[in-house]
């Protein structure tokens, strides 16, 4: 019996400090790793990705990754697509946990519960067990059938995937660990929120409370990580730029936009 295959797709920029860890973490369960590197990267990210990923491309972005998501997913050849960011990880036993999901014909997509990881007062790693950090689901895993899905290019967008979706149990073993709070100092996160605010529409959520969680920390319950789970609490210094593999061509932002336009036009989804 053949087993469904999984492509993990990553869009990244200036992530040479974390990519070694990220690849080590993802490779055990990914049949294919497809990476789009922001052409504005200046720290050897493309070089590292090109040496370790199955498919590496260079894309021109404008501050957010979403315009590349749909295009990137279409470069994947696996039966399923999993979208991860470079500060996100699945549990260590993800390979075992994913198997039954990928074989289940009842669903075309899965919403993964998200766990925002922080250090507690004793320096131990834990995740925030409080809304909105906990109980939210992010739709990141879906069948790689282009006629079935579309990922809009707007900030914090949710992919459109036809068919039944399953939201995995918030307290279950398979979750998406989000490490931005652990790895980014407050000042960097404030800058990120400011950037989101400048990009979001007047009625869009800016997600400020997600990134500035310390403002609510007095009432947030923390849950320790499982015993077999661990993450680096800090990243190695970003390596200096070095000569290495460079992209032979870059997919421009206009091409990404054109791709999305054509996909939206060609989509014949009954909803």
């Amino acid at each position: 019996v053949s087993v469904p295959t999984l492509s993990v797709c990553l869009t990244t920029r200036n992530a040479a400090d974390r990519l070694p860890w990220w690849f080590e973490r993802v490779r055990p369960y990914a049949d294919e790793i497809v990476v789009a590197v922001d052409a504005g990267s200046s720290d050897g990210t493309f070089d590292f990705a090109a040496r370790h990923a199955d498919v590496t491309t260079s894309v021109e972005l404008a501050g957010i990754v979403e315009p590349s998501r749909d295009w990137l997913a279409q470069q994947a050849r696996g039966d399923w697509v999993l979208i991860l960011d470079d500060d996100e990880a699945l549990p260590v036993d993800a390979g075992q946990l994913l198997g039954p999901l990928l074989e289940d014909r009842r669903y075309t997509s899965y919403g993964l519960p998200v766990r925002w990881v922080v250090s507690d007062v004793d320096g131990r790693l834990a995740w925030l067990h409080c809304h909105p950090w906990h109980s939210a689901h992010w739709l990141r895993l879906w069948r790689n059938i282009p006629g079935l899905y579309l990922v809009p290019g707007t900030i914090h967008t949710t992919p459109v995937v036809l068919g039944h979706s399953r939201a995995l149990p918030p307290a279950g073993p398979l979750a998406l660990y989000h490490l931005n709070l652990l790895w980014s100092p407050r000042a960097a996160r404030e800058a990120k929120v400011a950037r989101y605010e400048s990009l979001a529409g007047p009625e869009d959520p800016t997600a400020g409370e997600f990134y500035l969680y310390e403002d609510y920390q007095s009432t947030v319950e923390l849950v320790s990580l499982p015993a077999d789970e661990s993450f680096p609490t800090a990243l190695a210094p970003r390596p200096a730029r070095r000569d290495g593999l460079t992209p032979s061509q870059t997919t421009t932002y206009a091409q990404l936009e054109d791709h999305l336009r054509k996909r939206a036009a060609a989509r014949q989804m009954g909803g």
Partner: protein
Amino acid sequence: VASTLSVALITANSSNRLAWWCEQVRRYADHLVIAVDAGCVDDTLAVACRHADEVFAVDTGGEPTLVRDWLHHRCGDDWILLLDDDEILPADAACLLGPLLGDRTFTHYLLPIRQVVDCGADLGWVVDPRSGQKPAVRLWRNLGGLYRSGAGGVAPAVLGRGCSLPEDGPLGVYSLGSAWAGTVTTSALPATAIALDVPRSLGPLLSRTQVPEVSQVISTDQLRRHVITYCPTTPPWSATYRLVNAPTELTTNRGALLRVAVKNTSAALWPTSGCRRGRICLGNRWSTPEFGDEISMGDTSLLPNPVAPGEEVVVEAGLWTPRLPGRYRLTVELMREDDAWFSQHGVNPLILWVSVKSGDAPQATRHYVGRLPDDVDRDPSDPVPSLLVVRPSVRVLDTRDGSGLPDAARGPIGQDGLVVLRIGGAAGVVAHASGVTVMVTVLDADYHGWLAVFGTDGTKGEAFPVVHFADNRHPVTMTVTAALGVGRGHGRLSLHLSPGPVGATAQLLVDVCGYLLPAGRRSASSAQ
């Protein structure tokens, strides 16, 4: 991954061809799944049991289309191919199907249907498109929520992008009914010869020799229930809620978790689609008696999976509390996204009265942006030059049946009762309107009193009587132009019935006829 194929067949009285048909289909099918009409008079059931992988005896009650979707849900392969017992694919179908099933682009294929006739020495298929059938969806991906097999001869409806195979291409469905009925080609019925290994005529039906062991006969009721469950037009609007647990203390401007058990008491499957529109999920909203809606649409929580009729699931619902302390009415209920709350279809929501205390979280990091209850546009005592914009009349409140705006009050309003309507941004009124012109009707009153109409400010506005009414239950109507509330009462209009005898009531109707637009503002951001 090599894709697998289930071929699904619904048949009756086909014992004279079924064994041959199964042999043909076996060349490319991984599994044969056959539903045999329990009313068969011949040996079809026994033949099917000998040649197919799964066989069901079905009591269609004279409606054979009832069984289609049910049967397709019994298929276990990656793709489903739909054929009738007088239809086959070409001899090299296995080669032709391989690339189609392996192509990741499409969710379904439309196959040309070719009518086969007798051409003398050979068989041929009719090339005149006027006498042939149009390509039909016969091959689709077997994935949850992606297809619904039609009734009444209608092809399955499959979501996603499909591909119509060329009418003169190598792969088509050959329909043999005409050939077996003796139809021959003529100049008016030109046909292209084709090499099909097909018997030119059928023998008699085989007598029923034995009753094979089939696990059970699927009843008409079971089939009907399935059709109703999966039919997208079956109303989903019936549910019960049970509070599993709730936080004991809530503070302003922060998250909280609520566990709610939700039971599907409707006849429909509640879908949880990866696209937003039409899926069922759990939402919440916050209001106060004095100011009406504070958060008209809180965060939504997904159901864990599609919920079948009779099934109960527990949902961990995320809430974000209002930014001002006070006592709130928290309404938790299901919604069909981009459509309606269940309460708009008569389902009682889960209502909790909760106290929210002042918290210490900075107000800078908002969960909700846009217009918030504490937004202050202007000093309420400062007159604003305005333009009157006349609109077609829209009913925003009818307490006789609860119609009007979402959460409109239902039932007679008691004496000294207060009703708050969030009109700014609704009913054709722009969000930044400074006032409204409304037609207010009081009827069925059983006491003498008056109604005050005023911009919401957290009071009962006793000093502003507008509509006087008597206890004779006769309707009294008045057209009123009133400022809308500002600050926490932004965009809202309050209606207060004067105090009266204990138990006294009246019904209220409110129709919006126009609104006031602050001079210098444009109405581009029109309301939903």
